């Protein structure tokens, strides 16, 4: 038997065969197109090319505005290739000659170019196949309602092995057949990681021996213990059987019972869910939950590799609100941090660059008013279908909220004059996740209805750490708890509500600390929901609150960790 150690990205344990995910090995079925349908079929292609071109132009403008000409030029090659006249001519000729559908013809033509590039003498040219794949993905979206031409088809339940997983890979793979994921590159706090946890797919990264695994038969992926097992005997397999079965059951049931709405001593407690996809929301039963505390709207862009238009956004927001049947849904305005922007662009060459650090948050949106305005319009239009709340990401200054409110009022006036209805009871909140905003909490509180603490970024700002590194140890840092206490006090003083929506809230020990400091509302991933709900229902808030002074007076993360862990062991286990 052989054991390989890795880093846990998403918990769980599974066994199964390997599926090596090789990009670009996709075949598109061809089917007959009669002469009478040729024009409309080819017109579909022209429209897809035009839409792809528009999207890429918007992306180019963004890169040009916020980076420089040099980076925008990286996109130029794709812009030229997407509308290449020879390619379009070749597609047309192939369709006419073979009397087949345009998606098939487009893939044939593009694959031929890929083959020719791979035959060239230089690595430099061979690598351009990644541009061709990016383009193909974009055009195919506009050609097909189905998403199944993007990734190879998985035929049986398998553990996927790949060099890396992009967020859009994770969205488009068949979740029913994906038992687990193993990659060479990937981080805990990466967006692919967040998605894997949302979809409850066990995931281990930092595995250097991908090649060795590819040739294996059945393996056991024990993400809980950060281990991969191969070449094992039946006895070993039997010893894992019950854990594997338990995990499968856990994965299958979405939420077993109603989410707790109060702690053990009767103190009211709100537990909301973090989500980013309409598909994720579809799997939720509104009768059992309390609402969505964070809907990451930028995931719509990641899914599409572009910023969707107003109508596409409206449809997505409307569906989420309707599914939630009047429960609160907090839509966070686009947060294009570096990682999310790269995930959206999904352009290989940009991925390697480190220049996007300045992007993100409401500041970015105010710099790009057209994007913000379109999103606010879509949200307002959808607002009549449920309990809509809007939250602004990465607020640095109270002024940013004022500017956004002005725009919101202008959009309302516009809608009113066009006779388009919207809810006049939309709550507006600010994410508290930067160090600079901690100095103007009182001023900020005057302009919003709630604060929501984003612990991932807050830890980054206060303590500093690479986003792809494991942040869990930082949750216990005294600076974090002191900051949270400050935020809770400011909210209380202003009479507004406060919520924690970072990963910290789903850490059982950290949850005790948060509650001790006065947090009574959290939002966690759906994967963590049932565990967190159980913990809250066992929590004596009164007793917990007695820890507050102790925590606030401690000066080491280790000491805080011990206190919280002891409390957990004495009271919750």
């Amino acid at each position: 038997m052989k054991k390989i150690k890795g880093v846990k990205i998403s918990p769980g344990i599974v066994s199964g065969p390997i599926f090596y995910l090789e990009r670009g090995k996709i075949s598109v079925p061809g089917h007959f197109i009669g002469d009478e349908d040729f024009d409309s079929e080819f017109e579909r292609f022209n429209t897809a090319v035009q839409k792809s071109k528009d999207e890429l132009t918007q992306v180019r403008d963004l890169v040009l505005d916020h980076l420089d000409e040099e980076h925008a030029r990286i996109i130029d090659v794709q812009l030229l290739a997407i509308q290449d006249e020879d390619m379009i001519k070749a597609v047309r000729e192939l369709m006419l000659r073979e009397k087949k559908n345009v998606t098939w013809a487009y893939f044939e033509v593009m694959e031929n170019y890929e083959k020719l590039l791979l035959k060239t003498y230089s690595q430099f040219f061979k690598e351009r196949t990644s541009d061709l794949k990016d383009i193909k993905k974009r055009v195919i979206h506009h050609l097909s309602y189905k998403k199944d031409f993007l990734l190879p088809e998985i035929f049986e339940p398998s553990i996927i092995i790949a060099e890396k997983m992009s967020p859009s890979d994770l969205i488009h793979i068949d979740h029913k057949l994906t038992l687990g994921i193993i990659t060479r590159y990937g981080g805990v706090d990466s967006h692919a990681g967040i998605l894997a946890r949302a979809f409850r797919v066990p995931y281990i990264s930092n595995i250097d021996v991908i090649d060795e695994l590819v040739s294996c038969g059945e393996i056991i992926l024990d993400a809980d213990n950060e281990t991969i097992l191969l070449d094992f005997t039946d006895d070993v397999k039997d010893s894992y059987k019950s854990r594997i079965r338990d995990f499968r059951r856990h994965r299958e049931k979405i939420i077993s019972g109603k989410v707790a709405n109060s702690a053990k001593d009767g103190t009211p407690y709100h537990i909301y869910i973090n989500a980013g996809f309409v598909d994720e929301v579809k799997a939720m039963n509104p009768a059992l939950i309390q609402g969505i505390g964070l809907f990451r709207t930028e995931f719509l862009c990641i899914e599409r590799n572009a910023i969707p238009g107003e109508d596409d956004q409206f449809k997505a927001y409307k569906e989420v609100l309707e599914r939630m049947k009047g429960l609160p849904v907090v839509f966070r305005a686009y947060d294009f941090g570096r990682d999310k922007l790269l995930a959206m662009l999904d352009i290989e060459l940009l991925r390697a660059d480190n220049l996007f650090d300045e992007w993100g948050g409401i500041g970015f949106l105010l710099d790009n008013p057209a994007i913000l305005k379109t999103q606010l319009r879509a949200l307002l239009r959808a607002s009549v279908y449920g309990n809509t709340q809007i939250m602004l990401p990465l607020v640095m200054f109270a002024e940013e909220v004022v500017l956004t409110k002005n725009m919101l009022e202008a959009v309302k006036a516009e809608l009113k004059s066009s006779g388009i209805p919207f809810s006049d009871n939309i709550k507006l909140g600010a994410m508290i996740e930067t160090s600079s905003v901690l100095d103007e909490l009182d001023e900020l509180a005057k302009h919003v209805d709630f604060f929501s603490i984003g612990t991932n970024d807050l830890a980054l700002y206060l303590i500093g750490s690479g986003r792809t590194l494991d942040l869990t140890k930082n949750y216990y840092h005294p600076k974090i708890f002191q900051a949270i206490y400050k935020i809770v006090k400011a909210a209380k003083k202003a009479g507004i509500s406060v919520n924690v929506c970072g990963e910290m809230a789903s850490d059982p020990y950290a949850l005790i600390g948060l509650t001790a400091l006065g947090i009574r509302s959290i939002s966690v991933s759906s994967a963590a929901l049932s565990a967190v709900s159980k913990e809250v229902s066992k929590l004596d808030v009164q007793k917990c609150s007695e820890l507050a002074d102790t925590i606030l007076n401690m000066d080491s993360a280790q000491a805080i960790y011990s206190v919280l862990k002891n409390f957990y062991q004495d009271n919750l286990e």
Partner: protein
Amino acid sequence: MITKNVKIINKHGLHTRPATAFVTLASRFKSDIFLIYNGVRVNAKSILGLLVLAVEPGSTVTVEADGVDEVEAVESLDKLAQNKFNLE
């Protein structure tokens, strides 16, 4: 129709950015423009065609233009190559 031999003196040959610059400039002309390299002739307004040629650094390509602005086209493209596509 006129032709002109053009030397590619860039470090990496006619790779992504020079090819992008070449196609962008060629597309501004009304003439049909072709690039011939190692006996293969491709449309100079097609980025994909140019990339698969994988023109090596130091090599000579033939630019062929046919149309109302053929002289200007060939001269401008030659100048662009001489200036290393304004990149280096």
